[in-house]
Each structure stands twice: as structure tokens, then as C-alpha cells.
């Protein structure tokens, strides 16, 4: 039987970059085909070509044996191709039904929206594929995992049978990821075919039928989960052997660097976001903060870095009381901050890479002499860091906004880790990054720890928390419900605590070295 979808020799140039170089790719009926590659390997370009957002310079697209030209997303939908983007395209104040209907409205009498039939169709679809969704719920009230299901329903509603999922697990909790995989399975079992874009190796091995690896715009190989291993895939992606486990020596905790006492913090809607948190982080240790997103981690980090004032409680850094101090004062004490939202807080997208490198220290030597900014010094330092941290950019004068997400993150990490620091507050430091970059950034974080810096690592990725942390604080609804030694922490145990299980009654996993220290 002919493949459902075939791409032949797709080539796409951008100024100075060959984004896709004669890429051929086939998708069989009822197949989950994983497209694996680092940031900038050309995955997104290829999918945007398939979705009609870019036109290929050469090559052809064949759907069910027929060559097609795709000039726009509506052409793609007509060819049965649908895409769930990493950032959802939903209107929060509308209901599920209204969102699904948007752009493909069912009408009664040619004028009125036929919400009832649409809702019925959504119910049918969700029943058929095991996508539990209430058609009358408002998007803003739904958790991220359910919003993603709405996106999938949108495609099924439009009769797409080739589904592209772009980094679908990046925003999900471990439980939601499991649910998603069940949905994906049920989709392919019932005749859909699926392209799954990711750089998470474990997920690929767990779900895919076939794996194609891209590197630097070319297909470097195709394989199946049975024939390969994590390490082999990583090596294919990066082009060299990659250490998947972070090698680190036993922590040698020193003096307390960051000390939080009974912190209470409100969020923007004046709800209690951080509730009576007391926590010490010592020099030379990595304290991981685990928790499903939205359980107070964001506000906690903002208070520590001076971006938000607590209602009560104290923040001490190196013995100085910095409760409510300005970000500048906190930075000058030797605190580095990798912010959660890199585009909102960490970068000025319209500025060149060089100016973003200088963003924290623009006002002092060597970047400024008196009041005059020394552009040459900035450019030189930026060129050095770009080289050292392997930021892929045409030049240091390129606007940060035109870099890929992973490279933007590297600019921030380069800026923050290149300073002599006493405390590193890192919020999701490897979000959206590829294996090679993650390995590098993890190494840098461990190196900072070994140099004697205290590290507070906030991440919803349990793999990352487990790989790096010496101790793990689990946050649930604004409280630190438990502080667990990394030796005893397992993914399952942390997952239960993150979901709100009572630490007192949850069985502690088998001890490897020490007793779990449980704080309630």
C-alpha cells in the first residue's frame, strides 16, 4: 500500500542557512513516526512546509499517491493534514465548542451558529478516541493537558487524518503525558497517522513505530525503537557520543547561601501563591524544586530575585536581609537568574545578541567606561561567550528575536553563568532545548555547584530534577510539602507528591542511602 504521506527531496534555503537539504520522509497508514532532531535541525521548517507556511525551494509532497501543492494551512487541512502547535491557538474566553468551530462554523439557517450539533460532534469524537472533554467548558478553566486535547479535537473535527504534533509533551505533567500517549495510540488504532516531533528520547522509544533523525537540515537515519537505544539516538542527533546521565561528585554542602523563612507571597490575582515556605540552600548543593507548573514556583523565584514583594516572611542571601530588595541589589550580591519566560523577562528580542549578553552588567566595566557604553568590549565578550556556549547565530549583531528558542536560552545561560556567582536561581533552564544543549547546560550548572555556588533549580521536568538535584523540595499548592534527599527520590514518588498525595501516608521508596527527610 502506498504511504499516506511522502516528502521527496524537500530543500529549503534561508538567507545564509540551508534549513532542509533534500529531505525525504514517508508516513505509513496507522503509523506513529517520530521526527527527532536538535533545535535548528530543520524539523520545524519541514513541518511548516508541510503545513503550507513555507514553500519549499525544491522537492514535492505526495499525499496518498497524489502530488499536492500546499500554499496555506487551509490547503493542508483540505489535504487532511492537521497540526497541533507547541503553543496552543485557543481563545481562552470561549468554550471548547466555540473554539473548535472557529473558522469552520456550522450554521443553522445560514446565520446562527449551530452550537448544539457541533457539541454533539465533539462528544462523538471524544468518545471515539478517548479524548475526555466537556464541550461546554471554557478554555480558561481547563488544565493544559485538556487544552491540548481540544487542539487535537479541532483537527479531527476538520477530518484530518494526518496529524502533526509539535513537541506535544513540553507543557504536560508526567500523568498528562501518559494520558496523551493513550490518546495517540487510540488515534492510530482507528486509522489516523501521526508525525510526532520531539527531542525527548524516552518518549520516542516509548511511543513511536518509526524514528527519523534530522541533523543540520539532513536526514541522518531512520530506525525503529526495537533496533536502537537512547544513547544511539542521542549520538545520531548530536553527531557524537552524549552523556545522558549527568556525572557529578557527591555534594559538599557548605554555609547557607539562600535562606527563606515563612514566606507568604500573593500572585497577580492576589491569591496566596506561596504559603509559609521555609527553605535553606547551601553553597555547593543543588536544591531542586519539583512541582506541577502553577503551584507557586514562579512566585517563589520572583520573590528571591526581587521581582515581587512577599506579604510576610524573610529572604536572606549570604546573611543579608534582601526581603523586598531591588533586583539590582540582589544581582550585585552574586545572584544569577535564568528566568522562566525567556522572551518576556530574559531577553530584549529586538536587541542584538551582544547587547543581550551585556544586559545585566552594561553599567560597569568592561562594558561601560563612565557613562559611555563600550560597544567593542561588549562585542568581544559576546563573541567569546557565543563561541564558548555554542550559540548558533549568524553574528553577535543578529537580533536575539531571530534566533531559535534553544539558542535564545543559551544566550541567557551564557550571560548568567559567565559571571562569578554565589547563588544561581534557574527556572526551567533547559526548556525547549535539545539533548546536546541540555547536556552542556547541565554540566555548567554542576560546575557552578562544584565551584561553591548554591543552586536553586526549578523545573516541572522530573528527569531534570532527578538528574541534577542533591535535595528536592516538592511544591504543591504553594507549600513545600516535602524535602526529599535525591538518593531516595523516584519519579513515581515525586509524581505522587506533586499531585497532592499526603507525604505522611505515601510510602517512601526503597532507601538507597539515607532516610527520606519528610517535612510537612
Amino acid at each position: 500500500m502506498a504511504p499516506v504521506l511522502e516528502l521527496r527531496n524537500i530543500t529549503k534555503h534561508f538567507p545564509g542557512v540551508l534549513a532542509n537539504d533534500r529531505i525525504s520522509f514517508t508516513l505509513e497508514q496507522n503509523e506513529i513516526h517520530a521526527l527527532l532532531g536538535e533545535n535548528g535541525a530543520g524539523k520545524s521548517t519541514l513541518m511548516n512546509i508541510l503545513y503550507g507556511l513555507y514553500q519549499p525551494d525544491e522537492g514535492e509532497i505526495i499525499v496518498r499517491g497524489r502530488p499536492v501543492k500546499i500554499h496555506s494551512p487551509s490547503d493542508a487541512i483540505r489535504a487532511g493534514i492537521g497540526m497541533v502547535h507547541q503553543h496552543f491557538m485557543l481563545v481562552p474566553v470561549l468554550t471548547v465548542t466555540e473554539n473548535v468551530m472557529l473558522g469552520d462554523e456550522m450554521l443553522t439557517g445560514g446565520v446562527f451558529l449551530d452550537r448544539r450539533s457541533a457539541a454533539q460532534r465533539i462528544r462523538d469524537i471524544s468518545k471515539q478516541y478517548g479524548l475526555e472533554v466537556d464541550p461546554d467548558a471554557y478554555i480558561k478553566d481547563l488544565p493544559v493537558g485538556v487544552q491540548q486535547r481540544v487542539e487535537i479535537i479541532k483537527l479531527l473535527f476538520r477530518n484530518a487524518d494526518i496529524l502533526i504534533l509539535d513537541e506535544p509533551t513540553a507543557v504536560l505533567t508526567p500523568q498528562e503525558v501518559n494520558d496523551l500517549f493513550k490518546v495517540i495510540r487510540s488515534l492510530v488504532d482507528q486509522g489516523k497517522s501521526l508525525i510526532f516531533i520531539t527531542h525527548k528520547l524516552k518518549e520516542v522509544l516509548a511511543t513511536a513505530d518509526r524514528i527519523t533523525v534530522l541533523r543540520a537540515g539532513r536526514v541522518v537515519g531512520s530506525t525503529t525503537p526495537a533496533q536502537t537505544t537512547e544513547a544511539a539516538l542521542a549520538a545520531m542527533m548530536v553527531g557524537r557520543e552524549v552523556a545522558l546521565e549527568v556525572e557529578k561528585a557527591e555534594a559538599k554542602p557548605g554555609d547557607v547561601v539562600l535562606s527563606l523563612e515563612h514566606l507568604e507571597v500573593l500572585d497577580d490575582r492576589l491569591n496566596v501563591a506561596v504559603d509559609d515556605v521555609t527553605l535553606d540552600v547551601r553553597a555547593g548543593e543543588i536544591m531542586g524544586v519539583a512541582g506541577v507548573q502553577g503551584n507557586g514556583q514562579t512566585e517563589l523565584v520572583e520573590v528571591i530575585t526581587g521581582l515581587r514583594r512577599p506579604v510576610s516572611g524573610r529572604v536572606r542571601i549570604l546573611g543579608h536581609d534582601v526581603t523586598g530588595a531591588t533586583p539590582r541589589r540582589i544581582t550585585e550580591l552574586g545572584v544569577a537568574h535564568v528566568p522562566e519566560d525567556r522572551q518576556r523577562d530574559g531577553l530584549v528580542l529586538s536587541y542584538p545578541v551582544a547587547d543581550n549578553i551585556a544586559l545585566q552588567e552594561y553599567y560597569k566595566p568592561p562594558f561601560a567606561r563612565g557613562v559611555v557604553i563600550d560597544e567593542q568590549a561588549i562585542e568581544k565578550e559576546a563573541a567569546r561567550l557565543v563561541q564558548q556556549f555554542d550559540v548558533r547565530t549568524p553574528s553577535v549583531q543578529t537580533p536575539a528575536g531571530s534566533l531559535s528558542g534553544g539558542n535564545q536560552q543559551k544566550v541567557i545561560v551564557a550571560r548568567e553563568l559567565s559571571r562569578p556567582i554565589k547563588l544561581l536561581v534557574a527556572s526551567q533552564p533547559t526548556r525547549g532545548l535539545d539533548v546536546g544543549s541540555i547536556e552542556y547546560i547541565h554540566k555548567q550548572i554542576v560546575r557552578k555547584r562544584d565551584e561553591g555556588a548554591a543552586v536553586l533549580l526549578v523545573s516541572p521536568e522530573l528527569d531534570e530534577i532527578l538528574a541534577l538535584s542533591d535535595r528536592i523540595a516538592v511544591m504543591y499548592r504553594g507549600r513545600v510539602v516535602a524535602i526529599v534527599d535525591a538518593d531516595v527520590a523516584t519519579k513515581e514518588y515525586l509524581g505522587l507528591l506533586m499531585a497532592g498525595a499526603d507525604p505522611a501516608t505515601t510510602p517512601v521508596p526503597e532507601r538507597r542511602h539515607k532516610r527520606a527527610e519528610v517535612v510537612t
Partner: protein
Amino acid sequence: MAESVLKEIIPPVTEVQRQSLWRRAWEAVQLPALALFTAFVVGGFIIALSDFKVLEALADTVSRLNPIGYALLILTAVVLIGGVAISRKPEIILSRLGFAATGRQSRWFNIIAVVLTIAAVIGLLVIIGFGHVLELAWNAVISAYGALLEGSLGNPAQMIAALQSGDSRAIALAFYPISESLVASTPYIFAGLAVALGFRCGLFNIGAEGQLFIGALTSVFVGYSLTGLPAIVHIPLALGAGALGGALWGFVPGFLKARVGAHEVINTIMMNYIAFRLSEWLLNGPMKRPGAVPVSPFIAESAQLPRFFPDPIRFHLGFFIALGMAVFVWWFLFKSRWGFEIRTVGANPNAARYAGMNIAFNIILAMCMSGALAGMAGANEVLGVNYNLANAFSSGYGFDSIALALLGRSHPFGVVLAALLFGTLRSGGTRMQNVAQIPIDIIIVVQALVIAFMAAPGIIRAIYRIVKPREGEVVFTRGWGR
């Protein structure tokens, strides 16, 4: 092996790609230049269609059309629409014709299609009998724009003759128009810099006009109340007073924005009204010169900005001060760390806060500097041109400067170029009104069109099929209330 592949694809990062200066300069000005050109073309249509002779001839010709004429008219419309359609999507036409269309080919095809369409439409109109109308319309436009040019830059023949004759009075008269253009440009430079500096901090300073009035008030006060000072002291003092007055007027909305988040657009508008009424009251009361007219006393001679030529040429030192301020603003914005902070606050306030910058301080600083520059525009008029202050003396320099800052893309040097253009249009418009009987309002229409095209660059890009640059465009202001 993989690394060598990467090296092939991604150029080494240390080598900064430098485009040639000309190319960068062209990229910077192409959009404003095309916006201006388009505005003049549209303005030309308006001139032609508002000319009574043209309208009469048009009505006359239409009344004498026979059925064949009507048919041809419809054909013309078809040609016009078809030509536009073809020139919009040349790739499709080319590929139908069997060519593999690349960007370059289709561009040439596009230009040829446009030229042929225009030629065909004009040809058909002439055949139908509209030749006379077209001629009249063309004459109307040419005489209007000709008068505009002559009124703003002068008549080259007259200039040469005057220089040959050596008669100083004739020379002065010949060069009078261009000197007047420079005189009119000077306040535009100051006020344009004011608005541009605000834009760079993400602030929409609508209050340049009010700040300009206050600057004029404070500088005229220092100008006439202090006497017996040497010029070297008096001029800087009066100019500084103008800057200070404007800065104070900018400080209030800046402070309100920084402290309580009150939107600067609202507050600068309100401050304008306060400034207008305040100056009316002062000119009718405390600052009134003895007599019936609400005018301030003349400033002391020591406060007058020196002029370089005998009357009637009013070209004065203020022009060079304005150029100096443009250089200073450029240095401040792009070379000093204060400017770095102001630009960062404007481009991404969240990142500015994250980087430890004081947002409130920078907003207040930017509004004060913006106000000071606008105040200097007022001081410049009082000290260099009028020597006193009358009611409503500014006639919209502050408001025009918003358009001008947009046209200059909020860059100090762009502002200077845009100010020269606006000054030229303004002084040339007067002559156009006298000679060609075209109301000066057409200049305002052209200016308005320029603003519209600059505010919606997509229109210009669509008309001239310019590819949107990959690099981020300058963000002028943030949206309402954000």
C-alpha cells in the same frame, strides 16, 4: 564529521556580517521614501480632482461621449483591473507561461506589467477623448508641485542670475525661500527629537505642543525680564529656561505614569490644554505688553539668537543648535548607558526590570528630556524668529512632530531629515497657495498620508512588493494600558 557539516552550514560566529553602508542606508530609508512618494502621488490625484478647470472639462467630455466611447471606457476599466491583478501575482502568470518564476524575474515582470498598464490606460483615455482633461490635470499637478518646489528651495535660474549680478539684495531674495525652509525646519528638529526620544522609551508624548508653549513662555520671560547681561550668558540662560519649562511639563505626565500608571497619552493631551490656557492668561495679564494686543514684551537684544545674514533672511543660530541636539540625542540614546536603559525600558520593560533597571526613573527621565527638547523648540522660535510671544504662535509644530518622528523612524538623524522635509513643505506650501491657488491644506493631506503609510507599512510593502525584513522593526510604543 558532524561538526564539519555544521561549519559548512552555519558561518563562524565571530565574523560579524557587515552589509555595506549604502545598502543599510537604503534599507533604512526605502520605506519612508516610498511612503512619501506614494503620498505625493495620491496628493496629485487630489489636486487634479479638486481643480475646477479639470472638473469642468471632465463633465464636458463625459456629456459628449457616444456609445463607442462608453464601451472603450469599460475596456479601460478592464485593462486597469487586469493590469493591477497581473502585477499583483506575477509568479502565477509567469508559471502559466511556462517560466520557473524566481523573485528577481517576477520583479522585472511586475515593473513591466505596471508600466504597460499605465501606458495602455492613458492611451485608451486619450483615444476616447479625455486627452484634454488629462492635460489639464497634469498641468494643475505640475504647477502646484512646481510652486511648492520653487517656494521651498528657490528658483535655480534666479539664484544663478543673482550671484552673477553680485547684487546683495537680489542674492538675498533668490536664496530667501531656502533659508525660510531651514528656519521652519529648526523647531521641527527640536520637537521631532522630543517625540522620538519618547518613542524610544515606549512613551507616546502627544504633549510636545504644550511643552513647546511652556518652553516659549519661560524663555521669553527670561529674555525680556533680565537686562544688561552679555549675550554669551543671556542666550544660554533663556534657552535653558525654555528647556526647563518644557521638562517640567513633561515631568508631570511622566511622574504620573511611573507612579500610578496613568497613561501618558491622556495626560499629555490634558497638559496641552493647560499650557494653551495658561499662556493665554499670562499673555493677557502678567506678561502682556502695554497695548491692546495680547503679546509679550520684546526680548532683550542680548537674548536674540544671532542671524547670519542681513534682513529679510532670518536664518539663525538655532538651526545649528538643533543639529547639535540631534547629535547629542543620538549619543545619549545609542552610546550612553542612560540611553541603553531608556531603550531597554521601551523595548521590553519586563527584561529591564529583570536586569535591575529602575523603570519609574527611566520613564520620568525620558519624559523630562522629551519635554526639554520640545521646550527648546518653543524657545528657538521666540529667541530666533519672533523675539516675542503671541497667542497661538506655534501653529502645530508639536503635533506635526509626531508624524515627523514616525517618518524619521525615531532615529535622531532620521528626524533631522524628516524635519528638513516638513520645514520645506511648510514654507513651500505658502507659495503654492499664492501662485497655483492650491490651498496649503494639500500639504496637510500629504503629511497625513505619510503618517498613515508609515503607521501601516504593510500597505507600502504590498504596493511595492517589498519583502518584510527578518530583523525586528523598531517598536514605537506599547499598546493601550499595557
